[in-house]
């Protein structure tokens, strides 16, 4: 018995050491604990959401500023970036306002979603459950929507997957829109497996599009937040993003049945319901943003921000390295000048 206890004690120490060393090593790879990457140029100056012609994003460069909201000039996206003080996992700006979705510290996954003013100061914030995944504002910056992955549910059922999607305005918060009545193919649909994600709100601030998954199929839904009713339009559409003119939707379409990252970004014309695959052939797992009516931007693993024409022509080009969660709330209209695809495309 004594020998057995000694063996156990030694084993516990050894296993604890293995775990500890591994954790330590993984911690060392935490970008926030790494020295700042000198190849990423930073210029002094505040991130102000009302500055025109700026691309706002989440700074992913290793170093103490990792995870903070940053911006670059849209005319020179690979030029120096300005880094703000606000830290978010997902950020979106429109009309000079911001939306910050950030992990909240604690043993159970939870997050905070907050409106910010142009100077990145949090205004109205709400605590929500889950791990940050998507965040978006309506074009006028008044309606916020977000999606988190909820993992606590796995206590209840082995291996379940669930999303939680909320919508917030200045005076109203709904942290879970899953109970919204849903019509699939014109018929009322009730199921316990309904999941909403990736909301994009139209110019009237009440109509929105989103993904709904139920019964093993994803759908594009059009919903009315005031009438509290949603209706499916089309299958195999995820993470829709409405164009500034409201006529098209960019979305990720599942093109492979198995394997990781099985998506191809498409644009759907809402008037003709014709969809066009974009020139980006790599799998885009993002709710893309429209920089203007002709260009969309998105995050690719790296992470890096890339852009591609919205009509299926041209080629993808790199905008910003070490960056994710792009948006350009004050892009200054259709005349905004993006760099031509020349030497800037390094990949």
């Amino acid at each position, binding site marked *: 018995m004594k020998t057995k206890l000694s063996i*156990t004690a030694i084993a516990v120490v050894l*296993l604890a050491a293995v775990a500890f060393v591994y954790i330590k090593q993984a911690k060392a790879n935490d970008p926030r604990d790494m020295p700042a990457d000198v190849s990423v140029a930073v210029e002094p100056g505040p991130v102000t959401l009302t500055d025109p012609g700026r691309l706002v994003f989440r700074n992913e460069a290793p170093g103490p500023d990792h995870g903070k909201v940053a911006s670059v000039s849209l005319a020179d996206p690979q030029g120096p970036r300005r880094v703000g003080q606000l830290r978010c996992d997902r950020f979106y700006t429109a009309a000079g306002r911001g939306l910050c979705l950030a992990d909240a510290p604690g043993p159970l996954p*939870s997050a905070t979603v907050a409106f910010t003013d142009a100077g990145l100061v949090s205004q109205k914030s709400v605590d929500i459950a889950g*791990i940050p995944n998507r965040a978006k504002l309506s074009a006028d910056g008044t309606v916020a929507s977000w999606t988190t992955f*909820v*993992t*606590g549910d796995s206590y*209840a059922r082995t291996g379940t*997957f669930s*999303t939680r999607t909320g919508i917030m305005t200045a005076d109203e918060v709904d942290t879970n829109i899953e109970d919204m009545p849903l019509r699939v193919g014109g018929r009322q649909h009730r199921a316990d497996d309904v999941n909403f994600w990736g909301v994009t709100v139209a110019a009237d601030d009440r109509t929105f599009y989103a993904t709904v998954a139920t019964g093993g199929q994803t759908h594009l839904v059009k919903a009315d937040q005031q009438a509290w009713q949603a209706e499916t339009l089309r299958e195999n559409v995820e993470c829709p993003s409405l164009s500034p003119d409201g006529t098209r939707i960019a979305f990720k379409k599942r093109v492979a049945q198995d394997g990781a990252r099985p998506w191809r970004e498409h644009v759907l014309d809402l008037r003709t319901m014709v969809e066009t695959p974009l020139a980006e052939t790599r799998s885009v797992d993002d709710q893309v943003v429209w920089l203007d009516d002709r260009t969309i931007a998105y995050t690719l693993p790296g992470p890096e921000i890339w852009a591609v024409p919205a009509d299926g022509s041209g080629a993808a080009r790199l905008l910003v390295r070490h960056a994710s969660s792009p948006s350009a709330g004050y892009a200054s209209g259709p005349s905004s000048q993006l760099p031509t695809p020349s030497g800037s495309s390094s990949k």
Partner: protein
Amino acid sequence: MYIATARQSGPRQAGSSGRIVSANVIALGAVSLVTDISSEMVTAILPLYLVLGLGFSPLQFGILDGLYSGVTAFVRVIGGNVADRWQRRKLVAGIGYGVSALAKLGLIGAGGSASTLGAVLAADRTGKGLRTAPRDALISLSSAPDTVGRAFGVHRAMDTVGALLGPLVAFVLLWTVAGGYDVVFVVSFCFAVLGVLLLVLFVSDHSGPVKQAKDGVSLKAAFGLLRDAGFRRVCSWAVLLGLVTVGDSFVYLLLQSRLDIEPAYFAVLPLGTAAVYLTLAVPAGRVADKVGRWKMFLLGHVALFVAYIALLGAVDGVLMLCLVLLAHGAFYALTDGVLMAAATPLLPEKLRTSGMALLQTGQAVAKMISAVFFGMAWTVWGMQTAVIVSTVAFGLVVAVAWVRRAQR
């Protein structure tokens, strides 16, 4: 053959009810505690890892998951039978624990390959399927006939502590190391190895006189157990009750929609159930030994019936929350280990593992079917009607089971 009762020193109360459970049961409890930390760590973060870490589509993941749910059912019966045939329960359980431990490393090695991941998850499930029945057979064989309920109570309480800690450990790790899924897998592997080691060192296989009686153990003989009226009755009622039981996830979903709980706290609800479960498991086992295990098993279902009634709106607010969690936890404490204890005297020692595997498989399949039906009822009738219909069906089955018990 109850190793510890013989070895146990110190004051022993009069009568068998005062005896402490055998060291083998404590050892098995420790193995389960550590292993459950390991497996629940992975369970808690696996959907996240697959969807956020690897970029699988959530729907793909659902298919991947569903595909392997059936694996356990068959492996359990065959594994149980093999354990009986060799009379090597510890070995079969050990293989099960070992396979699951290796699967944790496989998760890191598989990377983004869907087919490899599928194989690794299937291996993990196989391991789980292999170990449950031999483990429960060992618990029953290591306890005096009149303390089996308590032994299972002690084991289940320890098991639940592990299940409670696992997700917390995983999320604390993920919080410490952002995106550190591999860290979770490595730590989970370490716990799993410790579990296997504890099993190898401290669990002794039952090796009484039945060791010689190897013949007469076959799959046919295992299914032949169902010819015994007593065991058949236990199995069929357990399956029938399983068929009308609403799955846990629905209970929490209903609680959430009824109470409008702050979503951040939603994840804590199952912890409430687990806390009640682990508190009541031992007393429930002790009482079951005295008043009758089958009676206790049915009482547990009465508790669940109370929870359903509460969910239907009999009470409201904090009272509803407390009542539902209390009743739900009590249901587990009064049924999970108690059922195995109830089956114990009905199964000959040489076929103990096979019998338990059969019973567990029947129950698991019944619960799977019930979840599908309840989901369909929800779709067709809506939530409220689905719950009413289920509650009525459940109440009827429990009532009939109770009456039949009284008549016996």
